[in-house]
């Protein structure tokens, strides 16, 4: 806090007993008016999300601290600027490779299924201002991200990031530019596949941001890149580039904002899915910390992100159960969590029973929270919101 230092001085103009009286009154009022907070499990969830997000940025900042040590092996950026960039075929072009040693983790791919492969990358082991590459392969297609880690004074994002996709003798390159919403830096955001028991929260805070995904019905794979826009309450952008024998299609960005994005496999058809959540629910009925964001499942097909949430009822059911559990654990600030549950139930086609549950909770005086709307007003506002966003008809 930029406090202005003030000189010590005596304040004789008012008698101490008068101040003591005011102080006593203040103590009493603080005791009487201090609001109740039932933070419960929601605080832990919110903190976990924030820590993961910050960790990604902090890793690169930590890298900057080793600048002096690693400067000796840094690659001149000009070596990469000479590489032609853009869409389409670039025949006989050699994939970007660093001219000096620091090839950090080009470790083998993780492949939870035949239609999905992501790189593994830990930038904490990469020095500052260091050129690195990381690779993932799916069938005959290999994608390689080459970039230079940040260095002082800014020390955060990557620079000169280029992705190269190789299939047979063809190589296609595309510059990885910051998302439109970003503060100018390219910062990776993990798209790591979820473990079997997780739904919307990525459990592994790695920098596995480069994935090749073969969505059902597509002739070839799609390259997905996870990016972070920075700032608080923001942050995730999934960038998709369709790979075809003639080149890379123009990148398409999906900004999932506060909701993280991860990959998983559909229990319905076994194909890959992008798992995220609906940011529209953030702050809608309570603070962000207590807002529940219902699950949203996407695929990238035909050059666009397509919502396939309704086609995967198993995952939606799991998500709904999670929100109801969270609501039951938050007696005084659960209306944001309940909203996510109702939304999931609407997706599942259970709107009548969900609204009956709402009415029961209303009759039992359970629809209370620290902010408006509450009670019947909450039910009305929720129904209108769900109708407006296509979840339920009123």
């Amino acid at each position, binding site marked *: *806090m930029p*406090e*202005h*230092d*003030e*000189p*010590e*001085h005596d*304040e004789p103009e*008012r008698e101490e007993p*008068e*101040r003591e009286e*005011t*102080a006593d*009154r*203040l*103590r009493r*009022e*603080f005791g*009487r*008016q*201090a*609001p*109740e*907070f039932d*933070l419960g*499990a*929601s*605080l*832990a*969830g*919110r*903190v*976990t999300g*924030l*820590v*993961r997000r*910050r*960790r990604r940025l*902090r*890793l690169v900042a*930590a890298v900057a601290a080793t600048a002096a040590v690693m400067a000796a092996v840094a690659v001149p950026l000009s070596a990469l600027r000479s590489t032609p960039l853009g869409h389409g075929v670039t025949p006989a072009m050699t994939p970007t490779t660093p001219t000096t040693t620091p090839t950090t983790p080009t470790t083998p791919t993780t492949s939870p299924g035949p239609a999905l492969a992501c790189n593994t990358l*830990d930038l*904490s082991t990469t020095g500052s201002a260091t050129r690195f590459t990381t690779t993932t392969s799916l069938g005959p297609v290999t994608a390689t991200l080459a970039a230079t880690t940040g260095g002082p004074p800014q020390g955060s994002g990557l620079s000169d990031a280029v992705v190269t996709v190789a299939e047979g003798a063809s190589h296609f390159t595309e510059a990885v530019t910051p998302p439109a919403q970003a503060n100018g830096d390219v910062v990776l955001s993990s798209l790591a596949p979820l473990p079997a028991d997780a739904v919307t*929260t990525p*459990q592994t*805070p790695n920098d596995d941001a480069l994935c090749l995904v073969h969505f059902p019905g597509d002739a070839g794979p799609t390259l997905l890149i996870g990016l972070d826009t920075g700032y*608080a309450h923001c942050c995730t952008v999934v960038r998709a580039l369709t790979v075809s024998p003639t080149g890379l299609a123009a990148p398409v960005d999906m900004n999932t904002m506060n909701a993280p994005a991860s990959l998983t496999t559909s229990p319905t058809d076994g194909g890959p899915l992008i798992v995220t959540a609906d940011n529209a629910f953030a*702050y809608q009925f*309570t*603070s*962000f*910390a*207590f807002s529940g964001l219902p699950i949203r499942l996407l695929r990238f097909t035909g050059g666009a992100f397509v919502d396939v949430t309704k086609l995967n009822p198993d995952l939606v059911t799991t998500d709904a159960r*999670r929100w109801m559990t*969270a609501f039951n654990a938050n007696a005084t*600030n659960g209306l944001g969590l309940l909203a996510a549950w109702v939304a999931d139930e609407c997706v599942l086609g259970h709107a009548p029973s969900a609204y009956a549950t709402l009415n029961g909770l209303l009759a039992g005086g359970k629809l209370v929270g*620290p*902010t*408006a709307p509450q009670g019947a007003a909450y039910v009305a506002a929720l129904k209108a919101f769900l109708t407006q966003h296509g979840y339920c008809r009123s």
Partner: protein
Amino acid sequence: MGGIEGVRTRTGATNTGAEDAFGAAMADQGFRLARLAFFLCGDRTRAEDLVAEAFAGAWPKWSAGRVDNLGAYLRRSVVNLAAKDRRHRLVVSRHDARATTTRLVTPGADEGLGTRIDLAQILCTLPPAQRVVVVLRYLEDMSEAEIAALLGVPPGTVKSRLSRALDGLRSQLEGADHA
């Protein structure tokens, strides 16, 4: 929603002891910190977010063993974050032509208590530096020396700010009583 158990230290190793203690701190101190944040920023929902931000900021240092007194660290974080938040809102409102005066949201603060004053509202009339010392002194029950250490100012400065704040609040409290 997962807990802090999903978070690993920077080296990738899990740190179960630190997680347990941190989880306990969230359960034990979250409420108190939220109350502190509420009286500093005057907005309940923002207070909850500030507390989450404070815990998230503390976790890396705590898990690395660089925080001796987690409670004190969190309290200082909340105070600093509230000040940062206030400055941010000032900047935003200055650049937003449609901005209106920030309305203080104090839902339920004095419901059913039969009081005529809204303490959070009254505190907002104080200069921020005075508000902080009043809240730390009379809500958190910190000594003037402790407040001085937390804010990084001389004890005499804390004392003078408290005096001025009490003088400023006296008339408002009395005025409210006679309203």
